[in-house]
């Protein structure tokens, strides 16, 4: 009996491993197909613009409001810490650097995954469950070119823009709390920030990060939707998995990217 259950356990571990590898391969193929059939999205810009509206414009509110609050919290916390060393004037640097390098790309990507990503997964999963994708295929229209690719590029394009807006809003929030509310010197707030933030090392690296997050999140999102079992539980499970997987992917990738980008420090 012991032997038999041990064998079964080993077998199930193997089964999970094979499954995971198989899914990864399928996801990679899906990614390749999406890239290969992107032509339609750029030839018919109207498709892309529509998706940009749904993924980008409709995510604006949550991104802007969260950015503002994150910046305000940074202002408060930063001030309290900095004033013990008597260097409140560096508040602008602290707020700007933490937003541009880390919080901007990471938090906006997390928000994007849960706002736009889950919506995309659910939409595509439901399109599959109600046979809309099969119908499209029967009408000789490739669903990857017509449905998936425009959403993919919309996500990739809007992610860096959203994270830039998040950072800008956060800096404004830090300014509100630090300068307007607490009364840190306005001149040193801006000038120190101006001197410390480097365009290539800080801002450009932040943009690269958010671009990578954009690709990863949209890929995961679309794949989960496309691969969802065509039932109610299937779609809800896929939506949950989207948020969990893409959040983990964002944080993991962030560590990797940071360790490559800022190893000189």
């Amino acid at each position, binding site marked *: 009996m012991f032997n038999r259950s041990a064998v079964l356990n080993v077998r199930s571990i193997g089964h999970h491993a094979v499954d995971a590898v198989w899914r990864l391969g399928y996801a990679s193929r899906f990614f390749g197909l999406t890239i290969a059939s992107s032509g339609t999205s750029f030839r018919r810009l109207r498709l892309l613009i529509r998706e940009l509206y749904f993924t980008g414009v409709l995510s604006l509110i949550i991104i802007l409001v969260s950015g503002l609050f994150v910046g305000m919290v940074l202002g408060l916390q930063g001030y309290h810490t900095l004033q013990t060393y008597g260097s409140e004037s560096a508040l602008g640097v602290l707020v700007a650097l933490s937003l541009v390098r880390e919080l901007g790309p990471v938090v906006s990507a997390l928000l994007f995954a849960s706002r736009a990503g889950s919506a995309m997964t659910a939409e595509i999963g*439901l*399109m599959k469950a*109600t*046979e*809309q994708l*099969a*119908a*499209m*295929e*029967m*009408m*000789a*229209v*490739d669903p990857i070119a*017509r449905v998936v690719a425009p959403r993919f590029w919309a996500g990739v394009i809007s992610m860096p823009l959203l994270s830039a807006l998040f950072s800008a809003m956060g800096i404004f929030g830090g300014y509100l709390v630090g300068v307007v509310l607490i009364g840190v010197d306005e001149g040193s707030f801006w000038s120190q920030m101006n001197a410390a933030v480097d365009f290539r090392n800080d801002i450009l690296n932040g943009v690269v990060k958010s671009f990578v997050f954009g690709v990863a999140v949209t890929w995961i999102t679309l794949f989960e939707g496309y691969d969802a079992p065509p039932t109610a539980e299937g779609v809800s499970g896929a939506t949950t998995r989207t948020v969990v997987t893409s959040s983990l992917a964002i944080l993991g990738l962030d560590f990797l990217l940071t360790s490559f980008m800022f190893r000189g420090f």
Partner: protein
Amino acid sequence: MPAQQQLLNVAKIRILDSFHMQSAYQSAKKVSLLLHLGWLGGVKWFRIRTFRRRLVAPAHLIEISDVSFAYDDRPVLTGINMVIPRGKVVAIMGVSGSGKTTLLRLIGAVLKPTRGELRVAGQSVHDLDQHGVYQLRRRMGMLFQFGALFTDLSVFDNVAFQMREHTDLPERMIRDLVMMKLHAVGLRGAHRLMPSELSGGMARRVALARAIALDPMLIMYDEPFTGLDPISLGVISNLIRRLNDALGATSIVVTHDVQEALELVDYVYYVSDGRIVAQGTPDEMRASTDPLVRQFVYGETDGPVPFQYPSRAFAEDLKIVH
């Protein structure tokens, strides 16, 4: 321009007058030929070529010879032989899970047969690449079980979908064509609605208008009667016959709604356990003495298809010891 406009108006009126209102798209093709690629230049030449090809094609639209299909090791269809003549409405009937829908998928080239040959319009589906499959599907229309309308598009845009994807027709012409298609299913007045605002029967009719958008040579219906009220059911069944005859198309109806189907179709194939066990005209089916067919046609609960799912002996399950 005025001369062409006039010509087009004459053509439009003639289309509207004709009994074959649904084949407006074909008339449009002729108009565009007439204007020799004037402002209608967008109509693609291959559509006109396929139109010509249609005139010289073989008598049977679909020929299936000795086709088998299996998912991995599990056989779904074995040794299917079937012909579907041009212009007829043919039913594929059978209990749920007998492989009817798989057969439809094979004809639509979604799946490829593991053995045997399947020819659609004289073309072997086996040899087609992705491009060829898509070319073939442009000449097919399919009505899905619950319509499968695109929920983010209005009724109008749903019907216009294929015209916009596959042709460069000007928007004005698309509008006319869509209105004619919707008129044919009696829903011209509903063109602004979204799919969520439609009843089940209406959604099915819109899906039908969408399926015939490009005047297909073959229309496939996957369980078209499921979940409809008696009135909608009658409407759909009437439309299947009328559209088939008006478009000069061929129709395949996959269904287990026996009485409705026997009224409607020209020929029946009865599928059970992945094999064709009986075939004939509706009258032959009604008169059949085959117990399997009788059970199905008259809806008897027990017979060759047992009421009980295969199980152990009843006494054994109740733990009755003798």
